[in-house]
């Protein structure tokens, strides 16, 4: 491919200015999660109903109602990787919706809170997707 012309370069530079201006407007500096807080060695298999799906950076969150052994409904937050990495492993943004029943394989929080790091998800149609986007 030949080098882009000056007009293309100027358009690219303007695009970058706009993109960074938008980024600078996001002032929150709250954290995202590493996997350090999750027990990656002892994953759980849980089945439940999606109550909310947040498709965003840095990580995707799936909120679910999951019944415990006594039949009580617990609210769980399931954390997947970034949208970019999930799409690269076959995910589509719209494939999980509120009300869907999912089979989750994930690493639970070490401190016992009802959050987990997603390792894989199986949809009600039987299709299985990686939750990390890498091996």
């Amino acid at each position, binding site marked *: 491919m030949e080098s882009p012309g000056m007009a*293309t370069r100027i358009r690219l530079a303007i695009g970058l200015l706009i993109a960074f201006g938008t980024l600078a407007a996001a002032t929150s500096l709250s954290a*995202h999660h590493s996997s350090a807080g999750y027990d990656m060695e002892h994953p759980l298999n849980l089945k439940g109903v999606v109550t909310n799906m947040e498709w965003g950076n840095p990580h995707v969150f799936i909120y679910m109602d999951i019944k415990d052994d006594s039949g009580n409904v617990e609210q769980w937050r399931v954390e997947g990787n970034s949208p970019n990495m999930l799409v690269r492993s076959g995910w589509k943004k719209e494939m999980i919706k509120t009300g869907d029943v999912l089979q989750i394989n994930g690493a639970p929080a070490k401190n016992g809170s009802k959050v987990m790091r997603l390792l894989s998800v199986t949809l009600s149609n039987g299709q299985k997707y990686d939750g990390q986007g890498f091996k």
Partner: protein
Amino acid sequence: MPNRSFALVLLIAACFATSDAGAQNTPHPSPVKSRASAIHPDLSGVWFIDEYHRTILPKEDPPFQPWAKELLAKRDYDNTHHDPDIAIDPTERCIPPGTPRIMFQPFPWEIVNSRDRILIIFEYQSLLRQIFIDGRKHPDDLEPTYMGHSIGKFEGDTLVVDTVGFNDKTWLDPMGLPHSDAMHLTERIRRVDHDTLVDEYTIDDPKAYTQPWKASRTFKLKSDWQIKEYVCTENNTVK
């Protein structure tokens, strides 16, 4: 935002550099031939860590200075007792991972040839690394940074990169491996075959380790991937 402002200036400069920057808009058949690559081995392309590990240590622990060993043990304890909603690792607060950790994250990065530099565009936090290959030296008055100051030269098919000028605000890996502002990083980056890149890195940090130590990581070419936007601050639940 100073780091992002800096990255913006660099990226805009890259728009006008003599390069094949336009090739980033489409998945490119690699290796891409450019005027820059005509004079040195072509490492360009989107690369992704072959096997991700949470540690960057070699099989045998390096010779820690006592404080560094104690700090790693403390961070290991904190990690083990970590509430996922409380940040411990600086990157959880969207602090840049710094070099070399940024190379080993499970996110792709792209090598782009330029006339006087090799640019590495990281998807993770949209960071940029520039490696000057025009023969310049490190400045005498370096301001400590996350990415450090990198100069490189080709020895045969190997890009040898020398990086100094680090701050001490980062962990070398998610386990909490410490370093100091005296860290001197040397990397030997080589394309061992068309689809495989190896980065052999040596860390010489006498404040943190009694001897230099080295290890390596392997990356695979992702010809059908493009670097996408990644925003660390968009969707967070951590207090």
